[in-house]
């Protein structure tokens, strides 16, 4: 997939050493492979038992009408057997074009796309800006860096509660806006402002990761390239456009993909910021969680179907992203 992996095939090594006989090679290969399999055995077991099997089981659940009232459960000493039945693709049909499909799926879908696009754009632009500033020779650069990664250092579930206090009606943000004679929106109640607040908090939480990754990328760009560009008379913008951005390309394509996946799947911020109070500000992930665990009776089948749909969206997106990168002759570094 990448140059580095190709290097790992050890072709050059094989060419250098005298070739062993076919039997020996087979034996050698077996030894090598046995060793590799032994090394990945634990992860295969863990992923197989806790990812592949649940995935298959989850797909099966989406084809049934399972909810918390008809699945197998134990109440006290009584064991009640599962009574849910197979209903084919009805769950998917119901989600995608059943009655009120717009309120239940498509509105959340559109909001999820907007949320992901806006958040990742803000993460990247702000992160790149701060990384460029931190990449200069500045007094107190280390201190700035330490302070700026604080939103990442403190766990999200802690900072989200800090934001909740700040955004609450009568909290510090609205008091400050009042003092400046600006309108003070109901951050945690009005749908538009809920969405605005969610994006704001997520941007605050996500910038440090981008900043650090891009800073690492900036520091790995060869300074002689800048010297050469300067010799050729490139101004600051041209140096940025033709040296910095191409130099960051592989880091960027990686962190943008990671950022998109993480933001798309961002659960904690919306879940903790609003709880059950904001049905319209739920992205698909939190909405699926609400269906499966936040209501009574718990609708396991629909929740699982949402999960499968989410995964399908991500897989399709990622394969297109990779194809697009390949067409531009870039490689994904992860």
């Amino acid at each position, binding site marked *: 997939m990448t140059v580095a992996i190709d290097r790992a095939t050890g072709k050059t090594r094989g060419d250098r050493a005298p070739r062993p006989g076919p039997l020996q090679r087979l034996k050698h290969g077996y030894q090598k492979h046995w060793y590799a399999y032994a090394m990945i055995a634990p992860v295969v077991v863990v992923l197989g038992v806790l990812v592949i099997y649940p995935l298959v089981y989850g797909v099966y659940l989406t084809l049934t009408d399972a909810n918390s009232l008809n699945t197998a459960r134990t109440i006290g000493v009584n064991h009640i057997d599962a009574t849910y039945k197979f209903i084919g693709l009805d769950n998917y049909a119901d989600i995608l074009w059943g009655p009120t499909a717009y309120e239940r799926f498509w509105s959340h879908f559109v909001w999820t796309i907007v949320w992901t696009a806006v958040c990742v754009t803000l993460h990247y632009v702000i992160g790149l800006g701060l990384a460029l*500033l931190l990449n200069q020779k500045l007094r107190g650069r280390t201190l700035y860096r330490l302070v700026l990664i604080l*939103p990442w250092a403190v766990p999200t579930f802690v900072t989200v509660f800090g934001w909740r206090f700040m955004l609450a009606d009568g909290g510090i943000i609205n008091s400050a806006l009042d003092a400046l004679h600006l309108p003070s929106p109901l951050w945690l109640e009005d749908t538009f402002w809920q969405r605005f607040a969610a994006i704001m908090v997520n941007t605050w939480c996500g910038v440090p990761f981008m900043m650090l990754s891009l800073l690492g990328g900036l520091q790995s760009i060869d300074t002689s390239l800048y010297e050469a560009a300067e010799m050729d008379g490139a101004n600051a913008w041209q140096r940025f456009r033709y040296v910095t951005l191409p130099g960051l390309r592989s880091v960027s394509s990686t962190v943008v993909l990671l950022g998109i*996946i993480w933001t798309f799947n961002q659960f904690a911020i919306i879940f903790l910021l609003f709880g059950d109070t904001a049905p319209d500000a739920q992205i698909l992930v939190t909405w699926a969680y609400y269906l499966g665990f936040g209501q009574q009776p718990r609708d396991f089948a629909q929740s699982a179907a949402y999960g499968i749909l989410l995964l399908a969206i991500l897989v399709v997106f990622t394969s297109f992203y990779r194809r697009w990168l390949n067409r531009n002759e870039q490689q994904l570094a992860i």
Partner: protein
Amino acid sequence: MSTTTVDTPGAVAGQDSVPAQPRTARPRGETGRATRLASHGILIVASLVALFPVAWLVFLSLGPDKDDYLHPGRIWGKMTLDNYTFVLEHTKFFDWLLTTMIVTLGTTAIGVIISATTGYAVSRMRFPGYKKFMWVLLITQMFPVAVLMVPMYQILSDLQLIDTYPGLVLVYCTTVVPYCAWLMKGYFDTIPFEIDEAGRVDGLTPFGTFARLILPLAKPGLAVAAFYSFLTAFGEVAFASTFMLSDTKYTFAVGLQTFVSEHDAQRNLMAATAVLIAIPVSAFFYFVQKNLVTGLTAGGTKG
């Protein structure tokens, strides 16, 4: 006509070189005074934005009444550490601490070991099924919690692992291992092959090479994997909220939510608990952050 068109670039270049003289005379990396001031200005504003919500939380935790967050001005007059003593003495803080430590450290230890061996295998060996395996790892990374939540809940309850530490550790490993394996693979790729060969020539077994030569060299990468596992397990909300049922087995992420419903929105206690939680994990973060940039972009800086 033709002479003018030829002359103009030369003339422009000539004019440009005069003001450009002091700029090129400056050593590389040094910037002008105005640029420097602007950079400092932006960085200071950004730092304040980064700092304020956390500082505000700390400040609120010092106010004794649960509605003090509405009147922050009054806190100055009655600052107290009562919230902290109350949280430490009268809540389940230490139960939550124990749970969180068991779960996060278990996840970190198991996750790092598994992902290091996996990363090494996929970095050095070419075995049948290699590409498919890498794809599975990549796809697993982007599983939304919603995909596995329901089936895992069913499976764990069949195995009677709901509301137990091993259950949560196993679930966390599945979210942590794929990313860490990619990370470690990227790091192992940067360690020269010749070191493995030297180890093999000197008579070490493959596992010996891995454990004695490669692992010590990969310490920064391991640190990042450990850091990532620790923070992920520590900050995870969805699985912990669903799979841990008894309130003595809550992780911090779940326990902190109980202040709003259970204790009638005792925001002062919540703030104090949040600060107590944030201190050790932030300390851990700053302890490992030196390896951070190198490790996280090890896979990214070489295309």
